[in-house]
């Protein structure tokens, strides 16, 4: 099963490489990875999506917790949560397909954020499933390039991942 694990990490050199190294060293797998500083400059928030059975996920969270740089973590998939990913897609926009790209973007509530005579750059946010669906819908028209941020997430309601 797919899990989204969010980690508060010391904003220290080498911290990220310890997390990433752990996954390869222990044969765990990373589907997406997303990391950026938080409102507290001493902490980064890292979100990783991974796939594994309960035993593997338990090992992943235990080993992550063992890393000295990991301050706190949560497996968001254990509760209600919001999952978002941002994607920028360059699509061929020539002739009749120019309108089709715009229409499809509207259907997905995506925005065209850059325009040239032959190319639309479209920005879309959503969960991974929505982004996959958008890629599928655009593929016949002609996708030139895709940039995805990887999944970020947060728990619903009052639950917090903080110190």
């Amino acid at each position: 099963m797919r899990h989204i694990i969010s980690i508060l990490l010391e904003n220290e050199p080498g911290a990220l490489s310890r997390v990433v190294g752990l996954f390869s060293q222990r044969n765990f797998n990373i589907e997406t990875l997303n990391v950026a500083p938080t409102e507290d400059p001493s902490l980064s928030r890292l979100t990783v999506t991974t796939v594994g059975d309960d035993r593997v996920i338990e090992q992943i969270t235990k080993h992550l917790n063992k890393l000295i740089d990991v301050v706190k973590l949560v497996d968001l998939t254990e509760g209600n949560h919001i999952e978002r990913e941002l994607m920028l897609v360059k699509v061929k926009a020539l002739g009749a397909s120019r309108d089709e790209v715009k229409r499809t973007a509207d259907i997905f509530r995506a925005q065209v954020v850059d325009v040239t005579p032959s190319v639309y750059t479209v920005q879309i946010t959503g969960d991974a499933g929505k982004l996959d669906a958008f890629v599928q819908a655009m593929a016949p028209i002609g996708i030139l390039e895709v940039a995805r941020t990887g999944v970020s997430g947060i728990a619903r309601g009052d639950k917090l991942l903080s110190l």
Partner: protein
Amino acid sequence: MELLSGADMIARFLKDEGVEHIYGYPGGAALHIYDALFRQDSVKHILVRHEQAATHAADGYARATGKPGVVLVTSGPGATNAVTGIATAYMDSIPMVVLCGQVMSHLIGEDAFQETDIVGVTRPVVKHSFSIKHPSEIPEVLKKAFYLAATGRPGPVLVDIPKDMTSPTERYEYVYPKKVKIRSYNPVTRGHTGQIKKAVDMMLKARRPVFYTGGGIITGRASEALTDLVQRLGFPITTTLMGIGGFPQGDRCSLGWLGMHGSYEANMAMHHADLIIAIGARFDDRVTNNTSKFCPTAKIVHVDIDPSSISKTVRADVPIVGAAGSVIDEMISLLQDREPASPDALAEWWKTIDGWRAEREGKLYEPSKPGEALKPQEVIEAVYRATRGEAFVTTDVGQHQMFAAQYYKFAKPNRFITSGGLGTMGFGFPAAMGVKLNFPQDDVVCFTGEGSFQMMMQELSTCKQFDVGVKIVNLNNQSLGMVRQWQDLNYKSRHAHSYMESLPDFAKLIEAYGFTAIKVTTFDELEPALERAFADTHELVFLDIYVDPFEHVYPMQVPPGLHA
């Protein structure tokens, strides 16, 4: 307030931390630190002849004393040479602090002379690592390194120190930090009382219980508490290789050790148990073999200080995260309030176990007859007698290691010093140096083989310089015995590169360093040679003992043909 250079801070910190010995080898990036060590006399530096030996010596010291071993090496090759020893300590959870010189900060990343990204290289084999970014942070970082190395599940911690951080011209305030706090690191000590109660309930109801204990008993200094608990309950106990000495091997409750070369009764008892109480052991593959068939009828209580060790390979029914000593103490106090189980409850179980004991009764090997080559096992037994079972014993890796574990009966913890997890050939001799330097009045025996010894024999020179009187027992079978054994069992005796052709004349080699060497080829020569060797505990003596090259380590729990 005192102003010190980074290098002087390091020397002063080591003194303030109570470090007596450090093991190391100088080089360009570490020269400021070496100069600071030269100008003080609190910390004694032991100059090894290869950085790997520095880590093994520090490791031996740590295993014998329970305190972190300290290593100092230079950048690049100095640091990479230390990697095997760091990995050895990591696999066996040994506290160690490794100080590494590094090229000047402004050169990092430029492939400078003797530059290696040693933090990157060692990342998978350290508990944690630090890079010094400013000289003023040296005291705090070093304190954190020692704190991390020695607490929780111990392990090696590396500190990378660029040369400009130790420059003699820049001085900063030095205060010895008595305490440090790391917000993300709060190792659990006490176990969860509810879980411990549950475990005690199961222990009182069990009919076929077995204790299975490991290195956590040794590093957690819990062997006295464990012995008390086991004797109160009268349960059988088996230890891992790393747990040897955690419970007296001569006790009736002891089934010896388990796993691939463990005793028949220990493995049978584990297989038929209804309750396994694992403490400070990690269900590794040399113990479990096929995990799906491991202990099929048992409920498992697993006590470990490291949550990630629990349910890693074998699912625990009652996981208890906590320090071995504290959890055992709590078990004992809970048992005191409880109605003890009837003494008859375990009668049937002990009858079965005694049956297994009787089945394998007699020796596992045939002692040599006059005119025949010595058996390695009888050599270990003779050394056991000669040292009255009281020596510190280090080993290298291979058949002699298994024989030492089987035939030297350890009654105390911290006496059997062996590379269990990584299985590092070359470990034994430098580890013995580290022990002997700190226990000069005790006998320290290194069981080795001609294969392993040749990996670290340059340390004879270190022993000469520092008068290290270890006793080296070389079980010379003129082959890489354990490799050869596997080739006999699994490769139709095709002995690919397991021969040791062109061996040196060890006696001459040892004598070249000014030490005594005794060659032994027959049983009659053995006892007098041992008497001579142990006459003076301060003298290094090398016993080159020719043993039967065809001997195998038995029992062995891997069916031939299975490439494990």
